[in-house]
């Protein structure tokens, strides 16, 4: 898997994935919804939004189920921003 720093935007696919990621966060932490609209796609949002390990697992589980992409634990350390998650899911989705 490559493209760690690939922050390309604009295709339908990537916009849909960003929406999907933000909805997964909103599902797990509904009270954070107001903050999500202004979330910088390149910040570590787990830290920024103070999500803990249970929230982390819940968000990742939703995304894995919705996209069919296997997200291994060893991939977690680099999936800290919405942009990184989006690119990872886009690259690994069939």
């Amino acid at each position, binding site marked *: 898997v490559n493209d760690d720093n690939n922050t390309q935007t604009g295709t339908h696919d990537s916009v849909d994935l960003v929406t999907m990621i933000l909805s997964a966060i909103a599902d797990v*932490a509904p009270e954070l919804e107001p903050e999500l609209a202004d979330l910088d796609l390149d910040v570590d949002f787990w830290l920024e939004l103070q999500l803990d390990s249970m929230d982390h697992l*819940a968000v990742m589980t939703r995304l894995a189920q919705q996209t069919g992409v296997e997200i291994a634990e060893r991939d977690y350390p680099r999936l800290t921003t919405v942009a990184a998650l989006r690119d990872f899911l886009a690259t690994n989705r069939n």
Partner: protein
Amino acid sequence: MRSLIAERMSTANREIPHYHLSRDVDVGALEIWLAERNEHRPITERILPAACYIRAVALAASRHRELNGFWIDDHFEPAESVNVAMAISLRRGGLVTPQIERADERTLDEVMAALGELVGAARTGNLRASWMTGATITITHLGDSGADLVHGVISPPQVALVGFGRTRERAWVIDDEVVVRPIVTTTLAADHRATDGAVGSRFLATLAQHIDHPEDLL
């Protein structure tokens, strides 16, 4: 909600003569065991360290029954089952402590599933009333962005609260060699009317042993 917690904790702090103990635990074996186990499992079946800590506390509490129960009418009443409550902070403010019933008799997978359900329900405001009563011992787990250790306040009528600080890399001595290991400081806040430091120390030693032998937690 904050004021209710404030009132209960003030009462607890005033009326319960607490004693506090701590013990540093090497969680390296647990981390490796979990990583290997989770590697071969789909994301829906992966286990988090928090579930292992709940199992370890449940097993330790079932062995040291003097810490599992209630202080009622000036005497200690041991509980028949081990129901482990987990302190979960809410982002809107406040704290809830739903419990996992008979956590000592459940498998690690069952405890993980129960934990996921509790945290999800707590965060979305859907906790069931049955989860909120009957706890016999409570855990507070600060998570990896938290502090190094916690000196907790017991939730009455319980007589013990077990704390887990964040995991941090520390210099550690194994076989006369200084090595870097992932360390968690476990703490016990206990009611001095029910037990003394010797019992508490044995509890923390048993807890450390379970964390060091994660295959026992299954």
